[in-house]
């Protein structure tokens, strides 16, 4: 199988371009960019270049962008920072758990979601806040832009990365470096308009977040985004064709399968499907033994033994669920190998 990685998990290895630069980044970016020493000034320049590059890819102005270490802080800064007296938080039922956690503490309304992962399109009031997800991390379903919403919009772009543009109107936005094969522990937070945002976290000066972040990892993330975007441009149509092929195979060769979203309204590299009468845990273990790593939204794979709230909200089958990511490195042979393995396993398990 040669170059077969067997890795269909959402977690990817660091992009080779970033990985190659990592030692140098740690070598050159060790000093604090906030100090006056010559070495610090050099690091400040490097960091600034990295931020310029990230901002360019994400459709931001340099001054709108902040680096955070933990995306969970970004949800809080981005959503709570827009809430006011009398605000309601509106959020799709397929939002990330971090959004559910914030909604528990404030006046909030959960927006029901249909089988395509599309939430009711809310109008809201001027002071309301919409936690809008550009694409869903589990199913890859792309949300229609929130054009009709009257209030402020937080954009969760942690799944879509740089693959989808920001909507015309947005107030705050969050990305995770993992979406473009960057290092874990780097997220990008943006504020569209400083006048309508306030810092909802304890803070002691004008800085957005008092939590520190790694300059070398930020540089690595910028390199990864640059390289990932170039790779993706080159492989996009190929990956989409593979996605098509997988869908056809699942329907025609395996059957009794529930696939999340249509190919035209999902990110081409993400695919979630559930097999009727199949125990996902057994299937995952069998796949693992044969060298294929996948994710699952079934209850057996979750910490609380509850099925994925995303699958349930979309009305999709929650048992027998498998979730795969087609990374830029994936090749057709390995996908075919994977599908054939899946076909044999499903037939055995259903027998």
């Amino acid at each position, binding site marked *: 199988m040669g170059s077969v990685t067997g890795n269909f998990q959402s977690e990817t290895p660091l992009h080779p371009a970033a990985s190659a630069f990592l030692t140098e980044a740690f070598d050159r970016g060790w000093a604090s960019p906030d100090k006056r020493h010559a070495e610090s000034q050099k690091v400040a320049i490097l960091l600034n270049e990295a931020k310029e590059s990230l901002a360019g890819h994400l459709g931001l102005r340099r001054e709108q962008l902040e680096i955070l270490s933990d995306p969970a802080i970004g949800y809080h800064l981005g959503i709570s920072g827009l809430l006011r007296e009398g605000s309601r938080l509106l959020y799709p039922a397929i939002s990330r758990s971090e959004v559910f956690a914030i909604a528990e503490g404030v006046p909030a309304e959960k927006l029901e979601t249909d089988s395509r992962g599309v939430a009711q399109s809310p109008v809201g009031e001027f002071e309301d806040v919409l936690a809008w997800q550009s694409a869903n991390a589990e199913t890859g379903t792309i949300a229609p832009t929130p054009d009709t919403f009257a209030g402020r919009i937080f954009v969760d772009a942690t799944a879509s990365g740089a693959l989808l543009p920001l909507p015309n109107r947005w107030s705050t936005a969050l990305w995770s470096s993992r979406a473009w094969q960057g290092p874990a522990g780097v997220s990008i937070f943006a504020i569209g308009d400083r006048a309508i945002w306030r810092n909802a976290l304890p803070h002691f000066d004008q800085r957005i977040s008092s939590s520190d972040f790694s300059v070398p990892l930020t540089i690595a993330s910028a390199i990864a985004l640059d390289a990932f975007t170039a790779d993706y441009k080159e492989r996009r149509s190929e990956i989409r064709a593979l996605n098509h092929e997988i869908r056809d195979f699942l329907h025609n060769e395996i059957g009794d399968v529930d696939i999340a979203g249509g190919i035209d309204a999902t990110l081409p590299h993400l695919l979630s499907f559930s097999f*009727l009468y*199949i*125990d996902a845990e057994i299937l995952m273990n069998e796949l693992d033994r044969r060298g294929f790593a996948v994710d699952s939204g079934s209850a057996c794979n979750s910490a609380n*033994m509850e*099925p994925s709230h995303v699958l349930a909200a979309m*009305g999709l*089958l*929650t*048992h027998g669920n498998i979730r795969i990511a087609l990374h830029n490195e994936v090749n057709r042979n390995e996908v075919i190998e994977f599908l054939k393995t899946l076909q044999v396993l499903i037939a055995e398990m259903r027998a």
Partner: protein
Amino acid sequence: MELDCRGMRCPLPIIKLATALKESEEVILLSDDPATLPDLSAWARMTGNFYEVVGTNKYFVKRL
């Protein structure tokens, strides 16, 4: 026919249900697994059968 799947985890209740429906056209399914409700709904849509919630952890299922 009554099918007691309480204490069983997914996908067992749905598998047992499908088997039971081969013998009986109507089944009362008892299941306390949190995945049963979303899965019954998806199963009914995929297989073209009918279900209805008739009580706590209690479902009426009919083969169509």
